[in-house]
């Protein structure tokens, strides 16, 4: 890996053999910056989707609610019947009848604190927690419909699953976007490197005349483009990170769109973007140089 060593050694004289001017350099800088900016957003999207999925699967895991609506005089009997059913259902860890205060707390956001809950026909809620194996929701529903006609089983997993699937989809979308961005970066660097190599055919001829090997000539171009991609991507990443920071964040209640920020160690990830861009530029230029130098021989 002579070219990696030359890259790190920072041989300024080696760098200078390729003229510093030319639109290819600016093209590389700009596209690396733009791609890095987009990559930061794709990353933020992926991480936010990850967090969302985690939250949904953790907070709501192993939970279900039984809602019992019945005439006031029948309610206690139905609750007792439901508790009896739950007691004998495999997979149910515990079941607890919510107190009036707890029910009021749940309704407060909608009806205010002074709700006279005793006088309303509010369904009675029973919080059910599952064991690790979980219970068979279909079977439980069948038994409840026979023994407790006013009961509705609200199995959280039912609406959680599509949400989890959506979060997973979003995460994939983020990763696919990252891969596409890397591919587009590689394509643009390849085009720019090809153009630079073609524009410098005369310089390559002079270098060959004085005994330069292909590896030496290629390394000069690889160095040039790798450093430009690194610089451009670093700038794009910085701007992207600032933009992500400035996105309004409503905290945990928000969805994907409002929870786009990086949290804690997530801040490490965008820092990988410039390194990745440099690596992409390194290999793209290396293969472009190899091809062009063969053609010019």
């Amino acid at each position, binding site marked *: 890996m002579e070219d990696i060593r030359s890259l790190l050694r920072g041989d300024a*004289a*080696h760098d*200078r*053999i390729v*003229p*510093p001017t030319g639109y290819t350099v600016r093209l590389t800088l700009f596209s690396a910056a733009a791609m890095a900016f987009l990559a930061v957003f794709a990353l933020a999207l992926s991480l936010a989707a990850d967090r969302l999925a985690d939250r949904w699967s953790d907070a709501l895991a192993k939970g279900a609610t039984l809602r019992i609506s019945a005439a006031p005089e029948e309610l206690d009997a139905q609750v007792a019947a439901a508790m009896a059913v739950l007691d004998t259902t495999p997979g149910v860890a515990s079941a607890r009848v919510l107190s009036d205060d707890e029910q009021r707390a749940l309704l407060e956001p909608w009806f205010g604190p002074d709700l006279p809950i005793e006088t309303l026909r509010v369904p009675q809620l029973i919080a059910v927690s599952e064991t690790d194996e979980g219970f068979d929701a279909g079977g439980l529903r069948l038994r409840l419909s026979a023994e407790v006609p006013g009961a509705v089983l609200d199995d959280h997993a039912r609406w959680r699953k599509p949400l989890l699937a959506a979060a997973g989809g979003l995460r994939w979308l983020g990763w696919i976007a990252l891969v596409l961005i890397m591919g587009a970066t590689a394509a643009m660097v390849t085009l720019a490197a090809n153009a630079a190599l073609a524009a410098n055919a*005369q*310089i390559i*001829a*002079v*270098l*060959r*005349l*004085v*005994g*330069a*090997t*292909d*590896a*030496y000539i290629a390394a000069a171009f690889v160095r040039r483009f790798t450093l430009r991609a690194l610089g451009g991507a670093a700038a794009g990443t910085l701007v992207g990170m600032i933009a992500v920071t400035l996105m309004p964040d409503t905290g945990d209640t928000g969805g994907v769109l409002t929870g786009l920020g990086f949290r804690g160690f997530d801040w490490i990830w965008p820092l990988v973007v410039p390194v990745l861009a440099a690596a992409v530029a390194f290999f793209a230029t290396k293969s472009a140089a190899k091809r062009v*130098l063969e053609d010019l*021989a």
Partner: protein
Amino acid sequence: MIEFENVAYSYGGGELLSDISMQLVPGSFHFLTGPSGSGKTTLLKLCYGALIPTAGHLRIFGEDVAMLGRDDVAMARRKIGVVHQDCQFLDHLSVLDNVALPLQVSDQDTAEAMADIGELMSWVGLTNRAHALPPELSGGERQRAALARAVIMSPDVILADEPTGNVDWEMSQRLLRLLIELNRMGKTVMIATHDLGLIRAAKSQVQARVLRISNRRLQLAGADL
């Protein structure tokens, strides 16, 4: 050390050189002459591996060029100093950097080697032009800079293509003296030129063989020069 054995070179336009056999033995001094377009530059390019014969065998330092990879050719170039027909510099680098280029590309640009460049620059009389850019040089200065670059690696062979192409008589004599000096140091020298006056001027100073390309073939020029 450079040996042609029934070498031919053709390109799309037909055969340019036919049945060339010759040797550049160490320490020899050759002129290569012939009308413009007769193939002098092509023959020099064959000598330093820039072109590959289309027939016959050409050995450079004992190796058949047809067998050499591009890296091998690059290594051979480090032992063959070339003054190209139109000099060929990197125009964005100073004259000094251009002269040092062979050292740089072969990773021999050590402090000692770089210190010796000053001496070389004064030998070709370019000390005060060291930091100029090549496009700022006159014809004679370009040729001398190209010569300095050609000899910086202490090559065994020096090939000069029309080194006096666009310089006045005085300057061409100066360049000739430099090349003769190199030959006296034991270097093999070959000069391609259509300038018969230069050849005549050299004959009194050096034992030179004059080869002429005529009708695609190489002949030893006789007493008519």
